[in-house]
């Protein structure tokens, strides 16, 4: 163990360059910000993940965000254990009928102001599960969505780009108001 700890002191950090904010995410974001006034949050965002019927692919990439390469806590993002602590609900899946109520309750449990980010192609409109008797077809069918991050699954970098976009806009809004 000592050897490993020592090595990690001398090895350079395993990080990737900070990604630029993607255009698609920005456009959606502008619309989101228009919808309601946003208070300044400071450079930190607490995220509560909610799986509303995902295949688990999106969750794998969410997990990857915490590994030594992406280390999202350095951006001020952290995953929290309760919706009561959350600024953002990061929701995946086509929203199955069996999960709709749990999603709604989780949303209601999160304090205002809050944002909902729909993650993945399923989260937008049900993806390849759209039309099934068992899914509602996208996060916005149940709770209002502020931002959508596409992909199947979106890579950790894509998720990071989307979240950064969200944060930067919130801050800007905070400055003007």
């Amino acid at each position, binding site marked *: 163990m000592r050897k490993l700890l020592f090595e990690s002191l001398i090895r350079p950090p395993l990080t990737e360059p900070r990604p630029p904010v993607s255009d698609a995410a920005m456009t959606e974001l502008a619309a989101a910000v228009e919808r309601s006034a946003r208070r300044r949050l400071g450079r930190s965002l607490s995220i509560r993940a909610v799986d509303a019927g995902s295949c688990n692919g999106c969750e794998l990439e969410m997990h990857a965000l915490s590994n030594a390469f992406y280390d999202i806590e350095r951006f001020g993002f952290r995953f929290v254990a309760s919706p009561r602590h959350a600024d953002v609900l990061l929701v995946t899946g086509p929203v199955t009928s069996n*999960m709709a109520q749990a999603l709604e309750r989780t949303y209601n449990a999160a304090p205002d102001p809050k944002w909902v980010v729909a993650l993945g192609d399923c989260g937008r409109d049900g993806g390849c599960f759209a039309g099934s*008797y068992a899914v509602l077809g996208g996060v916005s069918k149940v709770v209002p969505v502020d931002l959508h991050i596409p992909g199947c699954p979106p890579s950790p970098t894509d998720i990071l780009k989307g979240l950064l976009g969200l944060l930067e806009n919130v801050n800007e809004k905070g400055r003007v108001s």
Partner: protein
Amino acid sequence: MSALSHLIEKGASAQHHAPWPRAVVDPAAWTSAALELAEGRLTLLGLWGEARAVHMALLDEPASSIAVISLEEPADGYPSVARHHPPALRLERAVRDLAGLEPRDLPDIRPWLDHGRWELRHPLGERAATLTGPDPYTFLRAEGDGLHQIPVGPVHAGIIEPGHFRFTANGETVVRLEERLGYVHKGIEALMAGADLIRGVQLAGRTSGDSTVAYAYAFVQAAEAAIGLAVPPRAVWLRALMAELERLANHLGDIGAICNDAAFPLMLAHCGVLRERVLQTANNVFGHRLMRDRILPGGVAVDLSEDGRASLKALLAEIHRRLPALVELYDNTASLQDRTVGTGRLRGELARQYGAGGYVGRASGRGFDARGILRYPPYDQLSFEVPVLNEGDVNARVWIRIREVDQSLSLLGQILDRLPDGSIMRDIPVINEGREGMALVEGFRGDVLVWLRLTQEGGIERCHLRDPSWFQWPLLEAAVEGNIVADFPLCNKSFNCSYSGHDL
């Protein structure tokens, strides 16, 4: 004659079912199969239904043979298998929810996947309108002095799939755990019906995100078996290459995550780096981190370039270099061993009774591995071992993973060295008749079963996908008993059953 071939001989054999036989049997033979299962002479591989038939896939382990038996027109119900053989219980509850077929004398008549919230009932059978509103679900009772219940989920505290756990505890000790699943039921099998093979493989690859390669692999093997299509050798080898990369990535991630649940995040950090290297290399080489949609009916979607081969070789070298220190760290950290050794013990008889696949079975003495026993290509030309331990605790499941990482590294090396040249895709021929096919592929979690029936036009009439978790989830309930509540995450993670793959 083996128990299985005896059963098959008694029935009427189905036309064009490949590569294993399927026979339509009478209720007496069906029940005798259930009794064989209960006696441990056969292993249950799957049980599924459609509007007018119920099917059961059986494995005769000593003979390495597989067959499907079917019961037709069970409109007024069919003899329950679970009545004799408990591993069939959840499957029969699901068959009733989905196809509306009634298992007679089923010991547990509660619905399983159907929470009363779908647009309709019996989506795979004679569809019926849904009832108004969900019925309340009655959990099993546990009575006694000082018992209390802890309900957990479906939304959990971490980044985990949704499911509900009902613990009954006496102080800190769990006396009963009851699972309730079905929250992520997406209706995949109903979406499959009427789809073409391309959409079919897409859906199959999204049944369980961490096993996207295994599912696509099993789906195309079943389809190709039905059609009778031989795939170019290079494609066959590339499929195995992806399957081993997927296994490697998942095992690395899980070894770290299990240690993290024992409050040892250093392992998670290091294993997370190795997992990420695998995913990044997969992305560079095959264009997708999870290698999703890379396996197609007839072959694979992307070829491996020389550069790709070199970066895979570099990846293998890096893991070879870094892994021993991590294994040593795991093995020599007393505080970690204190949490994993003796925790969540699964008895060997239970693992065998339930036909537990993957590391769950192999850590409890059941050495079944579809790659080893069925030797589907290219594994028939590769050399590898199937590690088996008998302790059945969290530690044993970690060690099976560690040894499987070694095996996968060796398999990847062999594949890269001997990858045949040639094309990677073959056209799908027109079949002009209904056909059935089946496959069993070893995913990282265990054997994934796909059974399908194609229409004359080559579309999908019915496709059934069975995740290894069906037989592992009930065992988790057993393994947790007598452990403290705080060790549940550790037990759960060491099983790492799929929710999405199970709920479908």
